[in-house]
């Protein structure tokens, strides 16, 4: 049973977040370890495995990048552990510039940081809509490339969060 089936969701890139969260709560209840104290060791082990699987599935399905990667895996393309580098010069130059910009922000730049962060969010949205489209067209290599780019964008978002914490908390 794959993660989508486990959550009774269609195997598509767009998922209904509230259905996902509700199903997660239901499944968690159903397989809660407290329920298994009376079971035999073997049964308890199966139940524990199930509950781990539910958690893994939830972590994968709720994150757009992992979800796309998982859909690629189901389609036969496994990029989760790949170690090859991305060499798209224009894209990477832009990444460098953004990271330099993050480095240069100070606590007086709250508005600039907001604008910067909104721009990055827009880029993430665009990439996600590309991924949805590309998966629909079963363009696996193109999807994989967008997923790789998305990882760089998400890294930027993490860095913005860290910067904001450092400057404003």
């Amino acid at each position: 049973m794959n993660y989508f089936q486990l959550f009774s969701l269609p195997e598509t890139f767009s998922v209904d977040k509230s259905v996902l969260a509700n199903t997660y709560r239901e499944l968690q209840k159903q397989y809660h370890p407290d329920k298994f104290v009376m079971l035999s060791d073997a049964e308890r082990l199966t139940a524990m495995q199930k509950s781990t699987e539910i958690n893994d599935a939830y972590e994968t399905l709720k994150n757009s990048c992992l979800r796309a990667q998982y859909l690629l895996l189901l389609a036969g393309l496994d990029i989760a552990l790949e170690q090859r580098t991305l060499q798209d010069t224009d894209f990477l130059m832009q990444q460098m510039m953004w990271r330099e910009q993050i480095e240069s922000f100070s606590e007086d730049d709250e508005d600039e940081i907001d604008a910067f962060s909104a721009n990055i969010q827009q880029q993430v949205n665009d990439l996600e809509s590309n991924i949805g489209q590309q998966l629909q067209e079963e363009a696996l290599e193109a999807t994989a490339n967008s997923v790789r780019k998305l990882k760089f964008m998400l890294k930027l978002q993490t860095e913005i969060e860290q910067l904001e914490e450092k400057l404003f908390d």
Partner: protein
Amino acid sequence: MAYSEKVIDHYENPRNVGSFDKDDKSVATGMVGAPACGDVMKLQLKIDDNGVIEDAKFKTYGCGSAIASSSLVTEWVKGKTLDEAASITNTQITAELALPPVKIHCSILAEDAIKAAIDDYKSKNA
């Protein structure tokens, strides 16, 4: 995770951080990124008329191992020909810095940055 002494040394005193003008014909620029973690590296080589690397600079936004790997290769490539530089492998970098298996992609980044820089130079001077 414990970093080796060599990694810490390069991380704390990175050699050759900086940039050359990427539009200069004698400058080779390699840009690479690791999707595994979202880190990016820029490696630049300054190449003399005899095809020998006279200087190298890098800028890396990444983990300690990636910074150490790029710092190390800027030292290694100086005085080498392009072909010699192209033969540097991530295994050599990993061995020199005693990187653990999870950090192999960081050294691959440095190896590929050299190759990307050489490609850039060749296409610029073709």
